[in-house]
């Protein structure tokens, strides 16, 4: 019997990221003692990540008598006689990938324990079945406050990642902005604005089309086709909505906002609201009005709104 681990994409990416950072810092033209120390620290993180991967993502081979475990990079190798194994335990664990789950731990005769993380194997059930059939069960160790961890570990991980990115961005952008003049020094990117607006409009139009198509042919299409239709609709709807918020923010940040910005946001809100209240029957009208409004506003409607009701002088 042979069980192979999955490829640890997240771990490998982290290891490569820290290794690249370390090399860049080490060979930096402005390298000082401090940057070289930071480079060494990052290199050690990278090596630690690689060793952790090797330790956790092990291949399992069993020939009926000997259990052979070899690490992902073949650094860790173990040959264990099945008679020298005391048994196995099941520990309850929480992580951001599998939420609350059970993890298998092998207890060896010399007191050492070998952990088999669930994330490392695509078919964990196979290992569970193998252990159940060949090794003595020694007990179940539930996790204290499991429900609390199950709920908060993914949330805290997500928020920490987001905060880390925000801090990095804050530090990165601080020196690029014009000091003492608010944001007057920032450049407006018309290309970005145009592309985002166009992408939002196209996504909205296709979303309505996909929703109409799927909803009207529900009786004649298969379940999987309807499911795909729903997924496409959901994806395009999400893109359209998020782009609407992005375009408005981009215009505000660069000082190009005006009444048309908020009318665009309002039209998006009303479109989504109408479909929710009236149901799929509203889709054709929403599609036609949305697309019509998009074309009209690109053809000069936005300028017309701004010149008649604008709160700042059109640029």
């Amino acid at each position: 019997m042979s069980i192979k681990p999955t490829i640890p994409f997240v771990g490998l990416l982290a290891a490569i990221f820290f290794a690249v950072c370390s090399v860049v810092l080490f060979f930096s033209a402005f390298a000082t003692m401090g940057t070289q120390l930071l480079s060494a620290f990052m290199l050690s993180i990278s090596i630690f990540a690689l060793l952790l991967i090797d330790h956790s993502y092990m291949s399992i081979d069993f020939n009926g008598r000997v259990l052979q475990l070899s690490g992902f990079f073949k650094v860790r190798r173990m040959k264990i006689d099945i008679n020298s194994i005391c048994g196995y335990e099941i520990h309850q664990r929480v992580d951001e990938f599998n939420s609350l789950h059970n993890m298998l731990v092998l207890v060896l005769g010399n007191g050492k324990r070998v952990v088999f993380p669930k994330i490392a194997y695509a078919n964990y059930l196979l290992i569970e079945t193998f252990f159940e059939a060949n090794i003595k069960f020694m007990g179940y160790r539930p996790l204290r406050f499991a429900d609390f961890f199950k709920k908060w570990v993914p949330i805290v991980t997500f928020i920490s990642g987001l905060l880390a990115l925000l801090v990095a961005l804050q530090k990165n952008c601080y020196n690029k902005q014009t000091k003492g003049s608010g944001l007057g020094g920032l450049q407006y990117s018309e290309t970005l604005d145009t592309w985002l607006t166009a992408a939002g409009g196209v996504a909205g139009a296709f979303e309505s089309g996909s929703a109409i198509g799927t909803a009207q042919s529900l009786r004649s299409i298969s379940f999987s086709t309807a499911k795909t239709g729903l997924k496409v609709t959901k994806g395009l709807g999400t893109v359209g909505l998020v782009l609407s918020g992005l375009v408005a923010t981009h215009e505000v940040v660069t000082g190009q906002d005006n009444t048309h910005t908020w009318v665009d946001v309002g039209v998006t809100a009303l479109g989504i609201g109408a479909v929710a209240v009236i149901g799929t029957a509203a889709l054709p009208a929403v599609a036609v009005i949305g697309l019509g409004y998009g074309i009209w506003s690109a053809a000069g409607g936005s300028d017309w709104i701004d010149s008649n009701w604008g709160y700042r002088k059109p640029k």
Partner: protein
Amino acid sequence: MFDKLYYIFHSSVKSGFGHAERASFLLSASVLFYSYSLYFVIVVLTKSRVFNTTAFYILFGAFGVGIIYGASKYFVGTGRYRRIIDKYGSPRLLTKGKRFLYRFISFGLFLGAFVAFIASGITLARYLNPW
């Protein structure tokens, strides 16, 4: 709290194609635009600077997509919406008054999110580039 909130949105959305998905979308769109508004207000209140880099827009967009997809996965993908309906009862059995109240709350929250976004956006615009 989120379960009850989802139930309120689920009861308000017109039934039909992708009912659970539409309810989840409506709820997450509201949360998203309240979050954006909160960010704008924080920037104004703390007199912070605002990023105008590609990375910021990517993060801003990824946050939006993440909220909408996360909510969809949480409520619909995992089948949680069925458990919520089992817990609070079928929306069809709601009294007329209760249904009206739920519709009022959900559409109030949804439209309120966009109103908050527009109001905070104009406040931010005034702070960044006064007219």
